[in-house]
C-alpha cells in the first residue's frame, strides 16, 4: 500500500476540485494506517475516488455511504472509516443518514465534497445551490434557499465540525487528519468548485479565510457557522468550528462471541 493512488484512468475534469481533496486525503491517510482505513464513497463525481485509491473501499449507492460506513465500524472497531461523500449524497438523498449518524455519534469521518451541484448528471441543483441557481432542471432558477450544512451539523450534535476548501490542500489535510483522529462523528464540509457547472474558485479564493480561533464553544460555533449562509456575499470561515468528546455508538456495543444456542433452547421449555 506504498502508493495510495492506483493507475486507473482518472476521468475528473481538468482543474476539478476533487484533485485537491484527493491529495489532502492521501496525505492524511498516509500518516494514519492505510491498511486499517476503509474509504466509502457515494455516487457523483467524488465517488470515483474509490476507483482511484489503493485503499479498502466500498463504492456505495447514492446517499448510502454513511450507513454502510457505520455498519463497517460496528462490524470492526479497529478500522478507520472515512466516508467520502457528495452534497447531493448527503444533504439530499441520504439526509436522514447524516442526521442520525451525527445523533448516534458513530465513530466515522464524513468528508462532504460540496460542489453545490449535481455535476455528474450534467448540472442540476442540490440542497446547497443558491436560490436562483439556473440548471437543466431549474431553467428559471431555483426557488429554495440553500441548507447551511455546518449549522445543521452543529444542531444535530455532531462532535467534530469543520470546513475546508479544495483550494487549500495543506489546511484541508490537517482537518481530515484531526477528523480521523477524533473519536466520534467527524463532519468535514469541503467547498469544492466544479469548474464546468459552478466554478466558485474565484469567489472562494477571495472570500475564504482560516479562522484564528478554533474549537469554539457551541453557541459561538453556531454563530460562526452562520457567518456565511451559502447565499450571501460574506467572508467564509474555514477550520475546526467545534469538537466535543462523547461516548461513540460503537464503543458502547458489546463484544462479539459465540452464543450457546442449545442452552437457550433448554431455557425455552
Amino acid at each position: 500500500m506504498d502508493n495510495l493512488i492506483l493507475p486507473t484512468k482518472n476521468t475528473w475534469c481538468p482543474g476539478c476540485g476533487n484533485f485537491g481533496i484527493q491529495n489532502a486525503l492521501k496525505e492524511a491517510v498516509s500518516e494514519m494506517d492505510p491498511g486499517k482505513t476503509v474509504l466509502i464513497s457515494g455516487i457523483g463525481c467524488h465517488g470515483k475516488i474509490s476507483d482511484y485509491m489503493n485503499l479498502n473501499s466500498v463504492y456505495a449507492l447514492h446517499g448510502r455511504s454513511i450507513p454502510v460506513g457505520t455498519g463497517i465500524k460496528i462490524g470492526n472497531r479497529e478500522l478507520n472509516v472515512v466516508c467520502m461523500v457528495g452534497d447531493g449524497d448527503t444533504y439530499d438523498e441520504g439526509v436522514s443518514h447524516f442526521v442520525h449518524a451525527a445523533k448516534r455519534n458513530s465513530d466515522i469521518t464524513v468528508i462532504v465534497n460540496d460542489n453545490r451541484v449535481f455535476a455528474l448528471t450534467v448540472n442540476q441543483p442540490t440542497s446547497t445551490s443558491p436560490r436562483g441557481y439556473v440548471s437543466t432542471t431549474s431553467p428559471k432558477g431555483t426557488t429554495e434557499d440553500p441548507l447551511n450544512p455546518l449549522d445543521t451539523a452543529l444542531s444535530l450534535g455532531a462532535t467534530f465540525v469543520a470546513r475546508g476548501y479544495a483550494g487549500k490542500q495543506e489546511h484541508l489535510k490537517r482537518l481530515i487528519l484531526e477528523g480521523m483522529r477524533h473519536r466520534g462523528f467527524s463532519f468535514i464540509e469541503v467547498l469544492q468548485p466544479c469548474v464546468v457547472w459552478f466554478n466558485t474558485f474565484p469567489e472562494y479564493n477571495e472570500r475564504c479565510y482560516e479562522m484564528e480561533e478554533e474549537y469554539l464553544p457551541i453557541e459561538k460555533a453556531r454563530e460562526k457557522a452562520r457567518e456565511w449562509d451559502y447565499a450571501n456575499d460574506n467572508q467564509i470561515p474555514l477550520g475546526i468550528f467545534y469538537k466535543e468528546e462523547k461516548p461513540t455508538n460503537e464503543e458502547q456495543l458489546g463484544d462479539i462471541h459465540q452464543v450457546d444456542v442449545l442452552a437457550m433452547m433448554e431455557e425455552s421449555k
Partner: protein
Amino acid sequence: MENFQIIVGGAAGEGSKKAGLIIAKMFNSYGYRVFIHEDYHSLVRGGHNFSQISVSSDIGIEAKKDRIDFLLALNEDTVMKHKDKLGVGSVLMYDVSITNTEVLQKDGIETIPVPIDEIINESEGSSLMKNTALVSSFSKMMGMEFEKIKPILEKEFNRETEKNIKVSETAFNKTEKRRETIETGKDPLPLLSGNKAVAMGALKAGLECCISYPMTPATGVFSFLTTVEGIRTCQPENEISVVSMALGTAYAGRRTIVSTSGGGFALMTESLSFSAQSEIPLLIVLSQRMGPATGVPTYVGQGDLLFALNSGHGDMERFVVAPGDVDEAYYWGGKALNIAWRYQMPSILLLDKELSENTYGLEGRYQIEKEDIVEGLNDTGYKRYEGNDISPIAFPGGEAVVKATGYEHTKDGISTETPQEVKEMVEKRIRKGERLREELEVLEAVKVYKEGPVAIVFWGSTKGALLEATKDMNVRLVQPLVMQPFPEKRMKEALEGAEKVICVEMNSGGQLAQVMRMNGIEVDDKVLKYDARPFTVEGLRSILEEKINI
C-alpha cells in the same frame, strides 16, 4: 389421541398473551404437544386480544380449530366474541365480575366463575395479576399440581414474582378440581415462535450482528437478538439505513441478519441489488402480513412471494426460502445465512405473521452448523472478484486491499463499462446461481406428505392446518420450501401422476400457482384465503372436501 383447544382472552394490557404462554408451558411440562395462535389488534390498550392454545396428547396440531373446548375470559368482551365457538361439553371459566349472565347461559356448557378480585385481594396482589389468577384456577381445575406452575411463574414474572406466586396459590386453594391431567411420558419441548427459531438457527450458524427497524410481525427476530450477549445490534433511522448498515457489517466480515415486513422490505430493495452486484452477503427475514400498503398490520397474508422473487433492480441471483413450521424456521434460519455467505448473494427468508408470532414446540428434527466460506489469501495480490463463479472473500484490516462496489467492475473491483468485461462479470454471477441450483439436489427443497391422486400444494404456515385437515383424506401434500432457485425438477417429481393439483394460499392472486406456471407446472384449482385470518382446521377441511368432491 386427545386434542383440545383453549382460548384465553382479554383487553390489551390484561396479559392474555402471558396467560396463554403459561398454560402452554403447563401442558408442555406434562409432556403434551402445544401450539399457541396469537391474535391481537394494532393498539396498545383496550381492544380484544386472545391466545388460542392447541393441546395434544400425542402428535401436535399446529393450527387453530373453530370449536373451543375451554374459554377463559378476563372480560365480558371475550365471552361475547367467542361464545359461539363453544359446544356441548365445553367449559367457560370467567371472571365472576362479568355480570351479564345472559351471555353465560348456553346449553351443555359447564360454566365456572372465578373470583379473581377476591383471589387478588386475599393475596395482596395487584390488578395486573388477573391473568395469573385465571390461569392458576384453570390449572387446578384441570387437575394440575401447584408445584408444576410455580417454576413457570418464576420464569415468566421477573417482577413481583412472589406476589404472583401467592395469587396463584390462593387461586389453587379456591378452585375445585374437575379434570385429570397426567404426564404423557414425553419430554417437554422448547417452545419457540418462528421469529425466535429463525434467530436461533442463524445464531447456530454463526450470526454476529442484527441490524433492524421494528415492524410487525418481524420485530420478534430483532427484539430477541437484542437480548443475546455476544452479538451486536443496531436500530437505525429507517430500512434503507438498516440494509446499508448490514452490508457494512458484512463487508467487515460479520454474519448479519435483518428482519422486516413488506413495507420495510420495499425500502430495502435498492440495496438488495447492491448486495447482488457487490457480492456482499445479505440475509433478510421478510415476515409477511396482510397488504397492500399498511394493510391489516397484525394479521396474516402471503402476498409477498412474487415481490421477494422479483425485488431489486437489474437481473440478479438470489436465494429465497419459505419454511412452514418452527423446526423448518430454525433450520432455514441457519441455512439461509450459510447460503448468503457461501454464495455471497442476497438470501431472503419468508415467514408470515402466523409462523413469526405463533408458538410451537421445537421437535429438534434438524441440525444446523456454521458452514465454511471460500476465503481468500489476505495478501497484497488479492483481487476481490477473481475466479469463475464464487470469488474467495477477504475482509478489510489485513494485507489485502478489499474493494466492493455497486458499479459493474473488473476482477480488481474497479468500475468498468467495457462490453466484454461487463458480460464476463454478469456470467460469473450467473454461474454462482447455477452452483446454487446444483446444491438444490442435496437440500430439502420440496417436501411431500402422504399419498393420493389429488395433490395439494401449499407453502409457509398453512402447513399445520393442512396436515390436520387432510388427516383422513386420500390426498398428497406437496410443500415447496425453496422458492428461488425454484426446484422445478423436484416439484415435477412430487406431482407425478397427480390427477389434480390444488394450490392453497393466503393471498388473492394465487402467487405460488403463478410461480409454478412460470416453471411449466399446471395448477388445476386454487384455495385462496384473504380475510387476513389463518385457515382453521374445520374451515379448510370443508373447502377441500368440496373441491375434491368427497
